């Protein structure tokens, strides 16, 4: 058997796990590992400019590819800088393995230079974490880390590696385990057949059913099954913010995103339904609005891999714990083989109602006036990229506009920090995707506030030639904060202005990239065409948009799902 040092074992294990890229930043405690990286070529390393960006790069890749992203950082500040990225991945169930170097084991607890208890710091935001106590355990720990990160409900796993576990001159027998056994961990592999039958019976009896699909459908790679089931049943479908693309947005049965900034028709359909079939969704507060008033006449079927997601906020009638693809397959078999079918007449009048809601509002905004509307910018982006780009976003108004106006027909294309709402996520996430999917258009929709939170990564883009496109919806303010201040604080704009915005043109050019500024609607499409035609250049599109625009619809706080503001003056 081959003898390898701890550092070499770590890198070899990543290679054996099929990892092509890792994202990181070196430092004292990680130097043995970085030396091991240097002496091989299977695993390639991307040097970021801030560790937070490394986590978001890994995260963007993981969401687009459906596999764990890998981060390598040094101890202390290197490790603590990953915290926001780990929390982002945790909230959205993104598989990620974060390798944190640590001070030598004999110094732990002595407040050594660059020592932080990263296991303790990260404990509430990881799926699991492990410390290496003995170099010989490294292959098994890495195998476990990937297994845990990627199985069941995915999530981030932190591995803490003291420097003396990676000493170059101490060698151990290396073999990479083909599987791991954990007696205390066994995510469900199959939904309960009796429960699935019960759910199908309820579907046949329903008069106003709706499918409510979340990020779990994308993580569980079950878009095809979901779409097939929806088609056979001919029921309306709504996707959550995390589930955009799980069901194709351009399909007739799609009623749009639901929730706080969901469409009128999606929220009305949910509120008036008599059966909600929730698939890989978690009834989060940005979806349900006031749970006490949530969908008063609906029975609820809830399919989820995580039992803790079931009846956490809203109590459900038929829980089904299992992988969404397997459960949907079993439902499909039952539906296809059943003697009964869904009540056609009831469905016809349900669709008449749903179509009325669609016709009443749909997505509309007032496009008069001198300014480009942010919605127009997203619609133009959709047109120019033919609806087929990977779109990452930061957090705020631009995120909601992108989610509302870019029609995602495929899963894994819409990449955003839905749960944690992390500003600064968009650019590094786009970089991680572009690196791994170089032939696809990758665009980051952002705003001046979010973009400046990880702006330093423009330098990484230059070093590794990552020609992402950046669409900055420039309203010269922290738009979403300002919107809330307009609505709830009599327009007292406390610190929601970016009072000294940089000259983005000069800034982008200083990093060696291209910047375009668009002020007139007439120039919008041609500017975007020009930007996307520059295949090998990072192009920053600074689009000056209406600074007074709000995101609508918007659910009214403490109301039910159907209580919405539809514009600055209309309410349901």
């Amino acid at each position, binding site marked *: 058997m081959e003898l390898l040092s701890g550092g070499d074992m770590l890198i070899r294990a990543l290679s054996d796990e099929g990892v092509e890229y890792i994202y990181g930043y070196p430092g004292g405690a990680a130097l043995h590992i970085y030396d091991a990286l240097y002496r091989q070529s299977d695993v390639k390393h991307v040097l970021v400019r801030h560790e937070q960006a490394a986590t978001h790069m890994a995260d963007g890749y993981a969401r687009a590819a459906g596999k764990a992203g890998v981060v390598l950082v040094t101890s202390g500040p290197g490790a603590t800088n990953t915290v926001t990225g780990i929390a982002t991945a945790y909230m959205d169930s993104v598989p990620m393995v974060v390798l944190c170097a640590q001070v030598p084991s004999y110094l732990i607890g002595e407040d050594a230079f660059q020592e932080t208890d990263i*296991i*303790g710091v990260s*404990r*509430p935001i990881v*799926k*699991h*974490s492990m*410390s290496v106590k003995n170099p010989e355990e490294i292959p098994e720990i890495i195998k476990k880390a990937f297994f*845990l990160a990627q199985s069941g409900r995915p999530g981030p796993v932190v591995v803490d590696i003291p420097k003396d576990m990676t000493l170059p001159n101490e060698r151990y027998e290396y073999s990479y385990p083909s599987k791991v056994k*954990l*007696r*205390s*961990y066994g995510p469900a592999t199959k939904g309960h057949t009796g429960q699935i039958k019960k759910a199908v019976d309820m579907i046949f009896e329903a008069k106003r059913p709706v499918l409510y699909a979340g990020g779990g459908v994308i993580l569980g790679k079950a878009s095809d099954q979901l779409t097939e089931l929806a088609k056979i049943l001919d029921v309306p479908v709504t996707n959550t913010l995390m589930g955009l693309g799980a069901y194709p947005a351009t399909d007739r049965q799609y009623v749009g995103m639901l929730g706080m900034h969901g469409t009128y028709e999606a929220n009305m359909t949910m509120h008036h339904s008599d059966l909600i079939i929730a698939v890989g969704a978690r009834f989060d507060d940005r979806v349900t609005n006031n749970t006490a008033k949530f969908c008063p006449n609906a029975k609820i079927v809830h399919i989820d891999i*995580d*039992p*803790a997601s079931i*009846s*956490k906020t809203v*109590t459900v009638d038929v829980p089904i714990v299992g992988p969404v693809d397997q459960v949907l397959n079993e439902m499909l078999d039952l539906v296809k083989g059943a003697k009964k079918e869904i009540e056609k007449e009831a469905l016809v009048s349900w669709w008449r109602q749903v179509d009325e809601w669609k016709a009443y509002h749909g997505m509309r905004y007032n496009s008069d006036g001198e300014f480009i509307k942010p919605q127009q910018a997203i619609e133009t982006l959709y047109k120019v990229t033919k609806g087929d780009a990977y779109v990452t976003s930061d957090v705020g108004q631009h995120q909601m506009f992108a989610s509302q106006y870019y029609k995602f027909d495929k899963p894994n294309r819409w990449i955003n920090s839905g749960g944690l709402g992390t500003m600064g996520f968009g650019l590094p996430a786009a970089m991680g995707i572009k690196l791994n999917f170089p032939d696809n258009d990758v665009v980051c929709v952002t705003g001046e506030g979010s973009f400046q939170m990880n702006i330093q990564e423009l330098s990484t883009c230059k070093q590794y030639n990552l020609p992402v496109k950046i669409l900055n919806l420039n309203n010269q303010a922290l738009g979403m904060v300002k919107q809330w201040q307009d609505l709830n604080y009599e327009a007292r704009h406390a610190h929601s202005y970016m009072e000294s915005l940089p000259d983005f043109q000069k800034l982008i050019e200083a990093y060696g990239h291209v910047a375009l500024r668009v002020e007139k609607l007439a120039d919008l499409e041609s500017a975007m065409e020009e930007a996307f035609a520059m295949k090998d250049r990072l192009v920053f599109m600074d689009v000056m948009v209406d600074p007074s625009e709000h995101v609508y619809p918007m659910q009214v706080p403490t109301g039910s799902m159907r209580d919405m503001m539809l514009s600055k003056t209309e309410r349901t």
Partner: protein
Amino acid sequence: MRHIISVLLENEPGALSRVVGLFSQRNYNIESLTVAPTEDGTLSRLTVTTVGSDKVIEQITKQLNKLIEVVKLVDLTEGAHVERELLLIKVRASGAQRAEIKRTADVFRAQIIDMTPSVYTIQVVGTSDKLDAFIQAIGNTSVLEVVRSGVSGIARGEKILGL
């Protein structure tokens, strides 16, 4: 309602902190907590008493089960069970008090496990209610120090919590 949740936990460093952290992170109550290795050295048994609505208790058991190091758990209060807590109490005992305290201890089947001319140290075992009652019976004025172990519990009959 009060629940006693008994957990088999991997006997590994950091496992306990995850359990305790979960309770504070999700705003659950811990009334008492005991933990020690079992006959199988790779496993610890942890008993936590907590208070919450059915919905909260359901979430507690589900969230505990999600922790990788939690092997198995049971809510003992869902079935017939035995629970015990140990109390060590140091009381001022001089003069006529000495006999009175001794009599009270006998009533509770408590034992005096250490004494000086002016102090008794008494051990009481029983349910938490019994321990509360004993402390009340002794009277606050003479109590110098109280140590309680927290609740340990086990299901009645054939039911076991094991691998």
